[in-house]
């Protein structure tokens, strides 16, 4: 196990390194930031000075080494636009994104699991068929368009919920939270629902498939034969065993939820990291884009690693397979 863990962590570090190279080289191909950042009215001497200040006069590999050296110390360069530490900038915005992503996942579980359970227990019920077809629509909905429709219905037409921003937040443990104020809740509801729609369909389908697979198994029959109440069999035996793969998938989905928050955040003007990255791409703010990608890569690789390790701990079959 410890040898496997060491190899797996080594692999993860290798992937991160590889990504730094790809990101760095790729981003250097996107136009020259000098043209955009430095005014044309500067004379040649001032230009050269400005280029040197930004570290853009060194060869690419030198810039990469400097970048990697900084990265290991938590410095990913200063934003060209905001003149602040890029990583700091991302980390300031990240809690808002996490709050949104977690709310969306939570919403997906709270809505998707009961519906999926029903559809799995009564597959021929007309409501179940409706849900399955509905989930295809849920998969198909272009999330940016749904966002507009939600704004139109709930903000413009009904006037129930605000269409943009994060609203009032309250500080707790040094971080601003929307969860702690009513105004924050109102602002959170629409973007979270928007981000959750796809996941609701996913959770519904996974839960249904899991229930269908587990129902005919012997331990369920045995639990029934023992005389347990149907409710107890459903909750303690069927649902619990469905949840294991579901938790894995959702763990991995957290990463993609954070990525797709880019779209949701930009429409609802949610002040998270996703909106920052889109603005930074448009202004060619390279350090911020690099810092964001690095943060996302770290989140992704860590999530994958965590899920892998948990799987080995939870499921003895995977452990045996690895030992062969």
């Amino acid at each position, binding site marked *: 196990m410890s040898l496997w863990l060491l190899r797996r962590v080594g692999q993860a570090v290798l992937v991160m390194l590889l990504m730094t190279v790809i990101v760095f080289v790729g981003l250097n191909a996107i136009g020259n930031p000098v043209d955009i950042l430095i005014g044309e009215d500067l004379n040649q001497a001032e230009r050269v000075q400005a280029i040197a200040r930004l570290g853009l006069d060194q060869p690419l590999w030198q810039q990469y080494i400097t970048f990697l050296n900084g990265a290991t110390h938590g410095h990913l360069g200063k934003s060209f636009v905001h003149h602040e530490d890029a990583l700091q900038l991302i980390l300031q915005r990240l809690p808002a994104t996490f709050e949104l992503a977690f709310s969306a996942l939570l919403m997906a579980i709270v809505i998707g699991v009961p519906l999926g359970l029903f559809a799995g227990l009564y597959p021929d019920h007309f409501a179940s068929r409706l849900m399955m077809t509905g989930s295809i629509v849920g*998969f198909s909905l272009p999330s*940016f368009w749904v966002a*507009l429709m939600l704004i139109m219905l709930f903000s413009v037409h009904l006037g129930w919920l605000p269409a943009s921003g994060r609203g009032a937040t309250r500080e707790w443990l040094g971080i601003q939270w929307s969860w702690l104020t009513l105004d924050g809740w109102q602002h959170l509801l629409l973007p979270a629902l928007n981000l959750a729609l796809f996941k609701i369909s996913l959770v519904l389908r996974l839960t249904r498939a899991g229930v269908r697979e587990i129902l005919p198994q012997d331990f369920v029959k045995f639990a029934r034969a023992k005389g347990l109440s149907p409710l107890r069999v459903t909750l303690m035996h069927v649902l619990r065993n469905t949840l294991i793969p579901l938790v894995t998938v959702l763990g991995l989905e957290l990463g993609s939820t954070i990525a797709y928050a880019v779209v949701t955040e930009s429409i609802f003007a949610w002040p998270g990291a996703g909106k920052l990255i889109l603005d930074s791409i448009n202004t060619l703010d390279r350090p911020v884009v690099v810092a964001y*990608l690095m943060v996302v890569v770290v989140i992704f690789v860590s999530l994958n690693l965590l899920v892998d390790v948990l799987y080995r701990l939870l499921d003895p079959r995977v452990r045996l397979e690895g030992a062969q």
Partner: protein
Amino acid sequence: MIRVESLWQRGVLDFLRSPMAIVGLLILAVIVLAALFAPWITPQNPYDLMQLDVLDARLAPGATSGEGHYTYWLGTDGQGRDLYSAIVYGLRISLLVGVGSALIAAVIGTLVGLVSAYAGGWVDALLMRLVDLLLSFPGILMALMILAWLGKGVGNVVLTLVVLEWAYYARTARGQALVESRREYVEAARGQGISRWRILVGHILPNCLPPLIVIGALQIARAITLEATLSFLGLGVPITEPSLGLLIANGFQFMLGDEYWISVFPGLALLLTIVAINLVGDRLRDVLNPRLQR
């Protein structure tokens, strides 16, 4: 008389047993035909500036044009385009980008998958790690990066989507090829002294097609959504080209003033297209997946 059905004939009959799939297929047929014959079924070419009248901008659905030439059944957008025409032209780009990228990605991905299965060893390991890496990273972020790098354009969007999609085909083709290569018919072909590469392409590849077709259908839907999303964000198709994503983005600014139609109708067309493809793809998966056949 004994009717001999081929596997494909049985597949088609099986497919048609689901009413939802037939509905999806019909909607899809209408959309494809509309896109193909766009110039003949629309009153104006919405991307020919000579045909537009700025005075007709943001007219409500059902309004008639200034000179009373024709009726804007779905209203007009901010530039005075007939929305119905703009949507039909936009569908052309959606389908072109969706089908084009899926086809190119399918060819490249399948080839890589077959090579990976054929070569084995370190080539296989390297290619599959690359596939793992690509699939573990969220598509939208990769697309944003690539398009920020390449710039706008229909060709660039297709290229981006190919980069995102080929890995799905590669993984499936490889897995399927490895399974098939242990079958008896492959053994028999080997016994006949047919070369390994010919067995791979002539015998194994045709048997790998069913799952690849399913992936293809679902990837077309994904590609169309991504194109619209990227164009909406201003990173996909340039504003001179018709695109449903751009139309929706155009309508966003007027939506708060209750001029809903500019965003709603293109979105509905997009949704209908994707739902139709997904309905067909979903049914294909059920029909072509041997594990589900009882």
